[in-house]
């Protein structure tokens, strides 16, 4: 059953060197607090999966935690490049980074297939694209009824799924609301899962079809107020778009990034 624990304990217990990990949240509810805790605990050789690596993976890559990155759109949204990711790909700094590149539709389908317990995702994708030339994961199947060739890629089933959500009740059931992305899929497909929440409440007070993850689908719940900042939590705080813009300068230079890392991650106390 679900264990409420500190984020420090949750990461120490469930995140191991070499794990494949998906920290998801499609722009909304990106689990930054959990990512920073992974950096603080100096996990290494992680294989990270995320549709949009975003600042959170720029930080994890820059901190040297990552050896492999699976993604489908690798920029700083509306701003520009992820400089730490580029430095790793282009210059092996701070270490070499292998990449597996997909489209959004492919990754969304692969998460769906993972949650559905299937070994593969089948979809009408990559038609005419040259991504299959550079990603050997992309295969195809033939429909036995129509003869149509459809794209097939392996389902995503990470060792650890990590998401941020609005709230949990005292039994450990979790409500996700707003842009829910692939978060349900990540928790249901992962071998182990960690959920950070803004708060714990007596009653989730939900409508009949709300996106609620039952307690028994989650391994650890940690309270992390503002745990998605500079991303946002609907109903709690807005996206800090200005932070995203400023990240461009901070991350462009190795020294300024390392200073940021020291003061904003390692310099922060336990959560």
């Amino acid at each position, binding site marked *: 059953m679900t264990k409420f624990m500190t984020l420090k304990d949750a990461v120490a217990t469930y995140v191991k060197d070499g794990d494949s990990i998906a920290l998801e949240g499609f722009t*909304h509810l990106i689990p930054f607090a959990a990512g920073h805790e992974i950096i603080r605990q100096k996990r290494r050789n992680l294989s990270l999966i995320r549709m949009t690596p975003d600042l959170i993976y720029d930080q994890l890559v820059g901190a040297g935690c990552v050896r492999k990155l699976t993604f489908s759109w690798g920029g700083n*949204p509306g701003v520009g490049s992820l400089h730490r990711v580029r430095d790793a790909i282009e210059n092996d700094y701070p270490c070499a980074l292998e990449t597996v590149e997909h*489209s959004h539709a492919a990754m969304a389908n692969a998460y769906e297939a993972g949650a559905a317990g299937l070994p593969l995702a089948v979809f009408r994708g990559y038609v005419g*694209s040259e991504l299959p030339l550079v990603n050997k994961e992309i295969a195809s199947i033939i429909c036995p009824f129509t003869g149509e060739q459809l794209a097939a890629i392996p389902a995503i089933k990470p060792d650890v799924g990590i998401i941020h959500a609005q709230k949990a009740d005292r039994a450990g059931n979790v409500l996700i609301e707003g842009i829910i992305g692939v978060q349900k899929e990540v928790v249901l497909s992962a071998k182990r899962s960690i959920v950070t929440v803004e708060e714990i409440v007596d009653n989730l007070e939900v409508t009949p079809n709300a996106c609620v993850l039952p307690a028994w689908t989650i391994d650890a719940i940690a309270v992390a107020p503002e745990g998605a900042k500079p991303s946002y939590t609907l109903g709690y705080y807005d996206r800090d778009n200005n932070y995203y813009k400023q990240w461009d300068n901070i991350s462009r230079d190795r020294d300024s990034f390392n200073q940021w890392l020291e003061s904003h991650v390692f310099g922060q106390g336990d959560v």
Partner: protein
Amino acid sequence: MTTHNDTTQYTSAEMMTITAARALTNNMTCFVGIGLPSEAANVARLTHAPDVTLIYESGTLQTKPEVLPLSIGDGELCESALTTVSVPEMFRYWLQGGHIDVGFLGTAQIDRFANLNTTVIAANHPEGGKNGAHSYANPRVRLPGGGGAPEISTNAKEVFITVKHSKRTFVKDVDFITTIGFGRDGKGRDNLPNIGRGPSVVITDLCILKPDPATKELIVTSLHPGTTKEDVIEATGWEIKFADSLETTPVPSEKELHVLRELKARTEKAHSAQEAI
């Protein structure tokens, strides 16, 4: 962003956005890419197409943002939407399911067959090759990647593209086909009954281009006021052709300029409101 209060004057960027906005009509469902397409789509909604249905890949259905989103999943998109679905549902049911009339895309590179490259710039790299298989691993410029575009382009009924015109962007052959227009030979959609008909219009800051019905090569069908054929030739990386009945794009109206400038001002204000790191 410089704003202009004189609506008899407008920038080429404003001309592009407003022309792109006009391509959308009131009864369309539009899958909106971030950046220029999002700006154009919302100008359309705030002017001649109040009921245009805007859908973003973050899962927000029928959204009506007050300010432009910086990212594809800003809170504004969800709060102003009819409802928000999961991202797998968005790509499976709404896009692949055939409910999108228009996919509205931007790009980093586009070629004469409207193929789009947002993966790697590599043609000038010593290791680079045209088909991307070779140059991908060691690019000159690493771009963000495909995102939603590869499947938007094939699963939407048609595709609009808006992008600034320059020789660096408009190339004869893209270094890498992230997203198909009509393929390397213009025949990439032939005999594929289950995909959309592909790009129908490209709107730039200089002109409007459409695929030739037979060859699928992009040709200029309308020049923006003040733009010459030479301007377009100079900014295009292949021998660009012009339609026989070449039109002149209508100038932006006072209302369109006003709406666009107000939208950008609101957006600027909203995105700068938060504290520094």
